[in-house]
C-alpha cells in the first residue's frame, strides 16, 4: 500500500510540541543562556563564556567551594538515608501480615506519612524537635541529653535524617511488600521441605524476588533525597552554619538570595546533568536485569 502523504498531520503534533517548548525547552534554554553571562542587575548582561562552569568545578573559588561542599553533604545524606530506609523498609515489609483485616490497617498506617506535604512534615519536625516546646526536644533534654538542632551540627543532621526516614521508609516498605506478595506459596512450601532456615528463605527466595522493586525503591529514594529541599529548609534552614545546606538549598541561596543568575544557572545545569546521569545508570541496570528474563526460556 502506498503511504499517504498528508502534511496536515503535523497539526496533530503541534500542541504537544508547543507545550513541551514552553514548559521545558524554552526555560532550559533560558538557563543555558544565563549560565554563560554575568549580570549586575538592571537587566544588564555581560558574556562570561564557560567561566561559571570553571569556577563551579574549582574548589578554591567561593562558588566551587560552596557547590562541592553541598554536593558532598548531599551525597552523604543520600547514602545515609538509603542505608537506613532500604533495610528498614524490608524489615517492615517482612513483618507485615500476609492476609486478613490487619493488612488493610497496616497499609493505611504506612501510607499516612506519604500523604503529608513536605512543608508540613518539615514544620511537624521543626516543632517536635524544639527543646523548649517540642515533645522530642523537651524529652531528650530532660533526660539529660543535650539536644538542640539549631546550634549543634550533629543534632541537625540527626533530625533531618530521622525526619526523612520517618517520611519515606513507608514507600520502600510498600514497594517491598508488593514484591513479597507476588511470591507464590509454592516457594515457601518448597523451602520448608528443603529445610531452609528463616534466613535462608530470605536470602534464597525473598531477596532475589524483591530485587526489581528494591531497585525502583533505591532509585526513587536516591533521586528524591538528592533533590531534597523543603524539609531541611523548614527545619534547619540549612544550618547551623552551612552544615545542612544541600545542593538545592545552596542553589536557591545563590539564585534568589544573592540574585547571581549566571552562577545559579550554571549550578542548576550541572545539578541536572548529575541527576540525568544517575537516572541513566539506574535505567540501564534495571533494563539489563529485566532483559535476562526472556533470554532464559530459549536458552536450553
Amino acid at each position, binding site marked *: 500500500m502506498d503511504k499517504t502523504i498528508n502534511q496536515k498531520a503535523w497539526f496533530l503534533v503541534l500542541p504537544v510540541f508547543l507545550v513541551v517548548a514552553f514548559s521545558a525547552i524554552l526555560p532550559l534554554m533560558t538557563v543555558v543562556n544565563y549560565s554563560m553571562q554575568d549580570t549586575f542587575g538592571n537587566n544588564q548582561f555581560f558574556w562570561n563564556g564557560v567561566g561559571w562552569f570553571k569556577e563551579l568545578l574549582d574548589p578554591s573559588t567561593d562558588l566551587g567551594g560552596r557547590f562541592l561542599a553541598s554536593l558532598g553533604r548531599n551525597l552523604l545524606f543520600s547514602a545515609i538515608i538509603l542505608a537506613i530506609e532500604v533495610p528498614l523498609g524490608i524489615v517492615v515489609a517482612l513483618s507485615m501480615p500476609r492476609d486478613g483485616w490487619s493488612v488493610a490497617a497496616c497499609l493505611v498506617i504506612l501510607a499516612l506519612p506519604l500523604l503529608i506535604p513536605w512543608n508540613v512534615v518539615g514544620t511537624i519536625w521543626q516543632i517536635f524537635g524544639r527543646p523548649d516546646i517540642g515533645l522530642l526536644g523537651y524529652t531528650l533534654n530532660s533526660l539529660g541529653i543535650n539536644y538542640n538542632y539549631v546550634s549543634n551540627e550533629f543534632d541537625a543532621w540527626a533530625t533531618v535524617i530521622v525526619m526523612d526516614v520517618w517520611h519515606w521508609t513507608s514507600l520502600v516498605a510498600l514497594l517491598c511488600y508488593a514484591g513479597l506478595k507476588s511470591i507464590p506459596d509454592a*516457594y515457601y512450601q518448597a523451602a*520448608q521441605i*528443603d*529445610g531452609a532456615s528463616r534466613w535462608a528463605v530470605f536470602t534464597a527466595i525473598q531477596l532475589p524476588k524483591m530485587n526489581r522493586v528494591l531497585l525502583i525503591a533505591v532509585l526513587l529514594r536516591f533521586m528524591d533525597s538528592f533533590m531534597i529541599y523543603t524539609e531541611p529548609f523548614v527545619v534547619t534552614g540549612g544550618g547551623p552554619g552551612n552544615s545542612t545546606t544541600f545542593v538545592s538549598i545552596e542553589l536557591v541561596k545563590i539564585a534568589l538570595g544573592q540574585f547571581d543568575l549566571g552562577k545559579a544557572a550554571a549550578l542548576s545545569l550541572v545539578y541536572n546533568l548529575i541527576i540525568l546521569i544517575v537516572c541513566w545508570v539506574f535505567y540501564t541496570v534495571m533494563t539489563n536485569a529485566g532483559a535476562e*528474563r526472556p533470554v532464559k526460556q530459549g*536458552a536450553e
Partner: protein
Amino acid sequence: MARIDLVDLAHSYGGNDAAPESFALKPVTMTWRQGGAYALLGPSGCGKTTLLNLISGIVTPSRGQILFDGADITPLSTQKRNIAQVFQFPVIYDTMTVGQNLAFPLKNRGVPKAEIDARVKQIADLLDLTPHLDRKATRLTADAKQKISLGRGLVRSDVAAILFDEPLTVIDPELKWQLRSKLKALHRDLDLTMIYVTHDQTEALTFADTVVVMHDGRVVQSGTPAELFDKPAHTFVGYFIGSPGMNIVPAEVRGREARISGHPIALSRSYDTLPPGAKIEVGVRPEFVDVAAPAPGLLSANIERIDDLGRVRFARVRIGDAKFAARVPPGFSVSGETAGLVFNPSHVHVYADSRLVEGTA
C-alpha cells in the same frame, strides 16, 4: 524409606468445627506401602492436593494421625518429616546455579561439603543435569527446572517419600512422557515411595501401580489400573476412568436380571439382597456393549453419532433419556437410527447408591 499410614485423617480449612460435609478431606484410613508408585487421581477440588499437603506437613490435619513406619509424625514440621515434594510450577532458587539448587537441602541440614558434592554429582547424573550444573537455574526450560525441583528431593538420602503435585502441568506434551518415563525409571532404581497427584487419568494409569481415586473429599477406590477399569467400586470411578467413561443407567435389579427401561438384561451374578430404598443403577463399560442390528431380543437404542477413534469405534446412543456409549464391532456398518445392544453379562455391575454391590455366584 517408610511405610505411610493414615489413620482416620481428615481436614477442613474452616477448622474442626465445620460441618463434616464441608471437609476438604473426609476421614480416610489407608496405607501406602514402602516403595509403591501411587497416583492420586481426581477432578479439581476433590481434596487430592490437601491429602498430599497433609502428608508433607504443609497443612496440619484437623483430626487423625499420619504414621511413618508406625511412628506418629502428625505434629512434626515439614522440615523434620523427610518428605520431598515437587510442585505444579517449578520452584527454583533464582540466584543459584543448578548445582547450588541441588545442594540447597543438604546445605540447610549441615551436611559436610565433600558429601554434598558427591551426592549432587550423583543426582545430576541420574537426571541428566550434569552439563548444566554450573549454569544459572533460571536460564533453563520448564522441564529442566522441574527436574531440578525433583533433584532437590532426591538429593537427600533419608527421604521417605516423594510427593508430586501435578508436576507435568507446565511441560510441553512431547516432553511429558519423557519425564514420566524418567520418573518410572527412578522409581524402579531407587525403591522410593512416590505419590503422584494428577487429574489426568492417562498420567495416573501409566505412572502408578496403585491408583487412588478421590471424589468430593473421599477416597472412593484404590487399586491397580486393571481393577479400576474392570470393577469400579463407585460409579464416579467408572465415569472418571476410561474414555469414554462407564455407562451408568438406572435399572431394576432382581436376582440375575436387570431391567433397563423395562427390558431385561442378564447378569452373571445374583443380587438378592439389595439395600431397600437405595438408588439402583447398572454400570457397564462401552467396551463390553456391542451395537447390533435391531432385533426383538435386544435392548433398542437411538443412535446419535459414531465416534471413530481409529482403533475402535464407539456409538453414542440414547435409551429413553439416558445417554449411552457402545462399541461398534469391526466390520459392522450402522444403518438406520436405531440399533440393538448386546451386553457382556460378566462386565455388567450393579450399584446401590453409587457403590458397587458384590453379587453372589
